[in-house]
């Protein structure tokens, strides 16, 4: 029995997260009453440690957990590979998880959510996301996907005795499990057609045509269903509005950023690492899916006045934009453009959810309740305006604009001019509802005191000032987006 040589440095980041998760859980269970900030602190330490570890890895690409070269599989296949692409995904996942961890601290502080379990679930889900980004064979990919999903079901339903939280959790759970079942079916067909689960071997058998013809194609598509579900591509975006509205705001942010990024990483790995010879088969499919997703997301968001549902549909539309580089053939430059857009999207989306979370704690639900926020809460108002303009891709939000230019570039260079034109139209469509929200933020509240205006009487569980952690997240993301607007260079560090 040959044991695999394990490169411990390569798996250090996920280990840090798991360790932090477990310590957070234990500390919360046994620590004295009232110290609710501890789990958040521990999770932050864990994330920072993971970031440092992955930074150390950035010098050269490593591969570990390699399958033995014996037997018929000749090329050495390692199922855990750290390269630039993986590190970029890790950066996005870890930064977002850290910020979202802080975002959830106020509701823990208010006692709505159990601190220890929350951070444990959050970090274990993040671990799943990290493993997904580094996985290079179907088994690890599947297990990582499940590790990402299961804790998020629990996170959605975490609010005690909340009718809508329970309903959201159930819907999210059942639709996700069905999607995972389809993925499993796909994986079994791929395994059946190629005889192996490792990336290298599948790619060679597909290239040489050894794969059993119809089964491999159907298997490929079905494998993508699970990841498409996570990214909320067109046929699989049904769960998004209900889950985001039912879940706590922080968890909705988590789903819209980290689980979407992990889904994208999965898509990239499956399509580019496993099935690169079938590129002229799947790239039109992904292009059509991208076009449909962005158009549907924008059209649905046009009619929304409920803030969280609007952000939900906006994240569906942004998923459409994120798929464009993949549709263009998934070359190195395209993946870089996608990751740049993903990083911008992560920062800006977390900022938007942070502000919306802080204000909806005072009972603000619809866009009108946010009227005049720039006057009543300047920092929150400005951050949300800047975030929305970045999502819309309009100049004050130059980082959004530059990221969109990168997306446009990969579409045009991928000979997808029609997709570029659809993208152009969607930019205008998206502009309408972002603009309506920004207009509401900027114009002073009408006669009746807007909900954003902190009412004198205490709203249950609503102290008027945003919690320290929330304010910190808002400021950090706002400054990061502003700096990146002036010097967009670092956004593209992943691009070769």
């Amino acid at each position, binding site marked *: 029995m040959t044991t695999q040589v394990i490169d411990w440095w390569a798996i250090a980041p996920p280990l840090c997260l798991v360790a932090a998760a477990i310590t957070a859980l234990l500390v919360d269970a046994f620590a004295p009453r009232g110290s609710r900030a501890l789990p958040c602190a521990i999770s932050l330490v864990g994330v920072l440690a993971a970031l440092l570890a992955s930074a150390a890895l950035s010098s050269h690409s490593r591969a570990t957990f390699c399958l033995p070269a014996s037997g018929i599989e000749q090329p050495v296949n390692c199922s855990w590979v750290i390269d630039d692409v993986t590190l970029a995904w890790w950066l996005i996942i870890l930064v977002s998880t850290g910020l979202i961890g802080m975002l959830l601290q106020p509701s823990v502080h208010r006692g709505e959510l159990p601190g220890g379990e929350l951070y444990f679930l959050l970090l274990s889900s993040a671990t799943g996301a990290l493993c997904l980004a580094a996985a290079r064979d179907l088994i690890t990919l599947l297990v990582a996907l499940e590790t990402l999903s299961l804790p998020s079901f629990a996170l959605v339903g975490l609010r005690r005795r909340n009718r809508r939280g329970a309903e959201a959790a159930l819907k999210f759970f059942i639709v996700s499990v069905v999607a995972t079942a389809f993925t499993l079916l796909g994986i079994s067909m791929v395994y059946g057609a190629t005889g192996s689960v490792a990336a290298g071997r599948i790619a060679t058998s597909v290239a040489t045509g050894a794969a059993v013809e119809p089964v491999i194609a159907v298997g490929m598509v079905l494998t993508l269903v699970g990841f498409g579900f996570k990214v909320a591509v067109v046929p699989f975006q049904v769960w998004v509005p209900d889950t985001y509205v039912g879940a706590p705001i922080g968890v909705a942010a988590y789903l819209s950023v980290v689980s979407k990024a992990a889904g994208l990483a999965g898509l990239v790995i499956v399509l580019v690492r496993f099935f690169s010879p079938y590129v002229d088969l799947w790239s039109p499919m992904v292009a059509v899916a991208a076009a449909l997703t962005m158009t549907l997301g924008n059209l649905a968001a046009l009619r929304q006045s409920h803030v969280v549902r609007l952000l939900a549909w906006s994240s569906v539309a942004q998923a459409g934009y994120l798929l464009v580089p993949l549709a263009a053939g998934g070359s190195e430059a395209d993946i870089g453009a996608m990751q740049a857009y993903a990083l911008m999207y992560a920062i800006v989306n977390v900022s938007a959810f942070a502000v919306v979370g802080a204000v909806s704690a005072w009972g603000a639900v619809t866009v009108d309740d946010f009227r005049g926020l720039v006057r009543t809460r300047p920092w929150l108002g400005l951050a949300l305006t800047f975030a929305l303009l970045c999502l819309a891709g309009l100049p004050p939000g130059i980082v959004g604009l530059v990221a969109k230019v990168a997306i446009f*570039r990969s579409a045009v*260079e991928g000979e997808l001019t029609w997709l*570029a034109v659809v993208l*152009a139209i969607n930019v*205008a469509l998206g*502009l309408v509802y972002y603009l309506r929200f920004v*207009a509401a933020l900027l114009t002073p509240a009408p006669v009746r005191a807007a909900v954003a205006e902190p009412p004198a009487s205490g709203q249950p569980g609503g102290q008027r000032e945003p919690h320290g952690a929330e304010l910190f997240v808002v400021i950090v993301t706002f400054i990061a987006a502003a700096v990146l607007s002036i010097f*967009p260079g670092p956004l593209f560090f992943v691009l070769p």
Partner: protein
Amino acid sequence: MISASSFGGLEFLVAGPAVGAALLPLLRDSRRVTQAAIGLASAVLAVSIWMWVDVVSADGAYVWQSNASWIAALDVHWRLGVDDLSAPLVVLTALLTWCCLVALLKRAPDCGGTSALVGLILVIEAGSIGTFVALDLVLFFVLFEVVLIPMWFVIAAWGDPHDEPGRRRAASRFLVVTVTGSALMLVAFLLLRSELGTFDLAALTERARVIESDRQILIAVLLMVGFGAKIPMWPLHFWLPDAHSKAPTVGSVLLAGVLLKLGTYGLLRFWYDVVPVGALEVAPYLGALGVVGIVYGALACLAQPDLKRLIAYSSVGHMGFVALAISTMTPQGLAAANFANVAHGVITALLFFVVGAVKDRVGDSGFGVIGRGLYARSPHLAAVLAVAAVASLGLPGLAGFWGEMLTMLAAYSPHPDLPQTTYLVFMVLAGLGVVLTTVYFVVAVRKVCQGVPASDAVTDVEADEWVAWLPLVALTVLLGLAPMVMLWSADVVAALPVTP
């Protein structure tokens, strides 16, 4: 004399107003903010005039160039440079901004704070000057869009006080159409990038011949539609009248004087140099749309009950002339388009100032509300309105005439590959447009200025308004009597890369 490019003349022109916009609101008192802004605008105007002097002596080459890498990954560089095509527009922008700020000195806008409005105007100035001097495609696109949000905000927040939903709808319609246009323009730029491998405009021109023709046609069409939404060209013009009638005076002036020029400048800059073969195929359609715009705009003005909307439609007509000039694809056409562009900017800005002044005094710009006999009630205001109207209808001896005359002359003898007879028809229709323009302006002057004076008194032009308007009146007369000031010298024309 130290060469201006060393100390970053263009950087000052672009960054100066932007930084000013950020710092000025800190001065609290709105009067001091406006005064500081006027100081800054005067500095920008002075530097831009100095730049123009350099450009005129440089005979067609790029002047004050500067180049720094901005986004290495996307190969986007902070490339600035100015030549005969962009210099007059930069000076025009600087002048109009200066006039707007002077106009804002005494009379605060009826809704919304003044210091915020001043800041936004400076940002619009920075964005538009930046667009005129940008030599990198993506930088052009980014700065092209920098102007949009401030203008949207100016219209939505400071617009017509009586009709709040109306001005918000007008502002949003303006923004959505323009953003769609600019997005299509970006697609065209990226197609160029994928064909020629660089965003640098100067490099593109030499290599323009490499792109094969059907790809050039696609790029030309995308550019036409993209900039057409901004010019505005006929089918995409529906946002202009609302935007103008709902915008504050200052907003209308900048919208007509500067923003429309971004569209025509774009076409002038990218059609001739970059996709000549494609442009030749698409030129007749651009010419046709331009001519339809001229006649359509003129007819629409005939039946307009509102003076400000009438001026807006006249802009559609005048920009139709510029589009026709561009579509002739000859050096004469290019010179005509450039001159008509600047002339329209000066005259329509003056018209909007005057009409805005009337609207501020009377409350609304409808003919019924203004009443008759303005000559009696406020002689100087009516006189300036009459002079501006006469200049706008293209009276020889004033700026409007040369642009339109040279356009028709260019249409008379367009590029040899273009269908001669169609362009003759365009020329005749343009002539008809001129007559119709004369009719509606003269009728408008008759309705407003002449007739038995209405009862309510209208205060005459005040000192600060004179200061804001006189440069424009002087420029109109100067350009009319001495067009050679703006027309290009023979060797600049020779340097134009128009295919013989």
